[in-house]
């Protein structure tokens, strides 16, 4: 029961309170770049969720089974980025084989998941917070992906409506998106301090 409680709290905390996009500024590039249409945003969110769960788990295993306590710890970042690149490659190959339509619609953004800071950021945060339990690492990674999906879908929903709004000429495009993101962050700050 206690473990379940910790896991549930961890999940809610990473999805809503410590949402990577809103509080840690991770994954901003796809957040601004792919959030034009809600279906694309959702697909992107799912791909990121898959990659982040896989790489979060794998990097935790590598960190704890191989690297910790050895001089090899220096190579941590190199190992992490290799795992992420491998996971993205896997997703790419899988999608190309089984969902060619979805693969076509992602285009350049699929390989760019490698350089999505949310993924490397989460692996580093798991390391930094000293998570020493595999199950917790898996739940946190999955929660981070869900949090990202939620953030990017909300943003896409707002931007679809924003297209119809009367925005000052100089603020069109990126500036108004950033300001919207700021206001969204402000809304999500209301959750701060809900747990711990």
């Amino acid at each position, binding site marked *: 029961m206690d473990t379940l409680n910790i896991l549930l709290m961890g999940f809610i905390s990473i999805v809503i309170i410590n949402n990577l996009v809103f509080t*840690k500024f991770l994954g901003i*590039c796809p957040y601004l770049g792919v959030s034009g249409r809600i279906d694309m945003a959702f697909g992107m969110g799912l791909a990121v969720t898959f990659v982040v769960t896989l790489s979060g788990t794998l990097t935790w295993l590598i960190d704890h089974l191989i690297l910790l306590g050895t001089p090899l710890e220096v190579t941590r*970042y190199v190992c992490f*980025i290799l795992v992420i690149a491998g996971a993205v490659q896997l997703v790419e190959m899988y999608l190309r084989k089984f969902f060619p339509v979805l693969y076509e619609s992602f285009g*350049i953004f699929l390989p760019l998941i490698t350089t999505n800071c949310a993924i*490397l950021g989460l692996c580093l945060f798991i390391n930094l917070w000293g998570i020493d339990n595999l199950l917790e690492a898996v739940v946190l990674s999955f929660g981070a992906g869900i949090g990202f999906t939620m953030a990017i879908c909300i943003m896409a929903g707002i931007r679809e409506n924003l297209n119809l709004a009367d925005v000052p000429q100089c603020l069109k495009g990126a500036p108004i998106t950033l300001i919207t993101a700021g206001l969204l962050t402000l809304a999500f700050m209301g959750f701060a301090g809900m747990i711990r």
Partner: protein
Amino acid sequence: MANNAQTPLETQGKKSLTGQTTTSLYKQTLLAGLWRENPVFRLLLGMCPTLAVTAAVKPALTMGLSVIFVLLCSNIVVSLMRKLLKPHLRILMFTLTIATFVTIADLFLKAFVPRMSETLGPYVPLIIVNCIIICRAEACASKNTLVVSIIDALGMGAGFTLTLCVLAGIREILSTGAVWEVNILPAGFVPWAAMSMPVGAFITLGLLLGLVNVTTKRNAKT
């Protein structure tokens, strides 16, 4: 967003073939990073560190200098090995090169400025996935000679650092009334706490981008 960054430099490369002098090409490359192709304002690259470390000027400057170091080293290495690169493996090679230099920078910061390294936290290793560096490796260093790559790295790095410092300056003044931890505003000033939080980062950058758009349009008209 990363792919629209490649065109301007390619056209520059073509210009140099059609008889432009090399020195002016170097100068152009250097200046491009500072304003015309400013990574943050014009290309919208490297947003994560831009927003995350700009609560004060000191960490912003440290971040900028680390990025210049990594950008310079990775551009040099990528430019040197550009003829050996296989197309399908090149992104992986870029990332590994960058990761190596980021590790060096991270260890250096931990050893010599431990407190700053703590403030920046995971954002130093996150330089690995900073789109500016991988974009410069792809768009410039893998196609150009060593000298051009070095100058490009310096220009882009300087442009990035300047932008970070401007943003951090605005946020630090409004959130604490100080710059570089020295008070400059009168004592009666009420700090805007929101400016040091994520909200401040997003909105300040949004308004700055709007301002840049206005000035560019005005310049284009005259």
